[in-house]
């Protein structure tokens, strides 16, 4: 019987999230150094306590051909074991957790960032299309999100209204959580009157890319005890999976990979009834349609219930399961590391360190991250106040 901790339980013991106000004051290397140090300070640890590092870095956004190279010195890589997961920022978290869980490392520092130094972020991301069939098309991430939204709108009638209500909710949340950087709160009619960017997505349904950085410190149970680290957010379940590469090979309106990732995480954490298992969730919301897909994929709400659930206020502040109290990517969108920020936000809530948007009485929280064109990669993290979540069977992967 093993829960995620194959050998040991793993907890998030430090977090930092930065949104540099003056991007020119520091080089990217210096900004990464600052966020890594801030996470260590938050954990009450020094760099000598860190055994290994995983960073999530995207060469095209960073303008560095092997981006982990420049970042390594900033995060304490010299003399240490540092790896990089360019596939997604949240994959750095997954690998960091696996490395601690395997018993080879007591601690890991997980860091990712998303700068805005490139002349055009859409153009940089468009390089992710294959040069054989799709590069000649205007297929950037926003177009892919638009295609997904179209597929969803045609599959589920009247969900545009639900989508708009999610934007309203997350922008309201953002105004409380991070009034300095979040998109301003707006009423439903305003959100509904946006200009189309990539139909059916409008300029009020997305937030322009922002500069952000995030760092987390992970530690094993022994280390947490030895250092008496306060309020660890224990990882109870971890799942990750991918969709096919080409959009034409996928069911854009149904995320099989999210269902798979959810099953892995829930099985590990022993979650039987997701609708009552969590007191809070942070989910992918680069567009409101992503958040809807997350509701379904995470087993929180069937698609036929989306509109009703949104109208009921269930996912709002004060509802039974507040989603994206941080404001999500709909209020602040550091494109590449937005997913890792969801995980950090959920961990901070459990640790009682969320700030203005802190929620009381949390036992267990859920985080979901998506990356790639039309949510290709989905990652699900269940975290709790206790290392072990009730009764659980063994790890999901056993055939």
């Amino acid at each position, binding site marked *: 019987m093993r829960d995620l901790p194959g050998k040991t339980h793993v907890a998030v013991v430090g977090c930092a999230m930065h949104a540099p106000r003056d*991007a*020119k*004051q*520091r*080089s*990217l*290397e*210096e900004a990464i*150094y600052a966020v890594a*140090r801030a996470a260590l300070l938050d954990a009450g640890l020094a*760099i000598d306590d860190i055994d290994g590092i995983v960073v999530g870095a995207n060469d*095209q956004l960073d*303008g560095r051909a092997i981006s982990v190279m420049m970042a*390594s*010195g*900033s995060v*304490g*890589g*010299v*003399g240490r074991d540092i790896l990089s997961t360019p596939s997604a920022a949240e994959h750095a978290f997954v690998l960091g957790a696996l490395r601690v869980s395997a018993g080879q490392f007591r601690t890991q520092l997980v860091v990712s960032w998303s700068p805005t*130094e*490139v*002349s*055009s972020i859409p*153009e*940089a991301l468009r*390089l992710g299309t294959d*040069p*054989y069939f799709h*590069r000649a098309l205007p297929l950037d991430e926003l177009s892919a999100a638009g295609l997904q939204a179209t597929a969803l709108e045609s599959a589920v009638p009247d969900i545009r209204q639900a989508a708009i209500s999610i934007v309203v909710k997350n922008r309201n949340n953002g105004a409380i959580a991070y009034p300095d950087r979040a998109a301003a709160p707006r009423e439903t009619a305003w959100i509904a009157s946006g200009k189309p960017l990539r139909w059916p997505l409008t300029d009020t349904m997305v937030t322009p890319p922002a500069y952000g950085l995030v760092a987390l410190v992970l530690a094993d149970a022994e280390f947490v005890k030895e250092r008496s680290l306060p309020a660890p957010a224990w990882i109870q379940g971890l799942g990750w999976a991918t969709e096919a590469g080409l959009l034409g090979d996928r069911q854009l309106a149904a995320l099989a990979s999210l269902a798979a990732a959810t099953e892995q995480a829930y099985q590990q954490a022993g979650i039987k009834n997701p609708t009552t298992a969590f007191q809070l969730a942070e989910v992918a919301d680069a567009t409101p349609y992503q958040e809807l897909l997350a509701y379904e994929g995470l087993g929180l709400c069937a698609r036929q219930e989306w509109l009703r659930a949104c109208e009921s206020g269930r996912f709002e502040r004060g509802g039974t399961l507040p989603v994206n109290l941080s404001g999500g990517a709909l209020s602040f969108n550091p494109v590449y590391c937005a997913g890792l920020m969801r995980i950090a936000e959920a961990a901070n809530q459990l640790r009682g360190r969320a700030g203005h948007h802190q929620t009381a009485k949390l036992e267990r929280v859920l985080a979901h991250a998506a990356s790639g064109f039309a949510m290709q990669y989905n990652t699900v993290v269940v975290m709790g106040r206790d290392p072990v979540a009730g009764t659980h069977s063994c790890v999901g992967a056993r055939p």
Partner: protein
Amino acid sequence: MELLTRKESWNIAYEHALGETASWFYVQIRDHAKLYGRRDPKSGRVLVPPRSFSDQTLEPTTEWVEVGPAGRIETFTIVYEQFKTLPPPPYAFGYVLLDRADTAIGGFFRGIDLSDPAQAAQTLKVGVRVNTRFAEKRTGDILDFWFELESK
């Protein structure tokens, strides 16, 4: 059968922030033709080019130290091959430990006959003293200066 290819190139540009430390360093080069390093308080090493923190100790550096203009060659190479987007060969460049610095800075070596590789490599040796030369027109960049052998 007929096998086709598609030509694609990446056309994206970047505006990289240099930050306070590198900006100050480059302004000194541009306006005063002077070179500076930053001292790591923990190890005492003067880092050139200046870094705002030491990647060995992860401590912020705390002091500007003027370095050079003379120094010694720590390593070099002489390039005889044309690479796309890089200068036409032959050229020599490498790393120089400037006086009062503890780490070496990269730059071109100029004023050396590179036609015979073996002979040029005898002239440019590890430990050979060099001097920094600054361009008349400086933009605030690493290419505003280069190294020449110290005149005997």
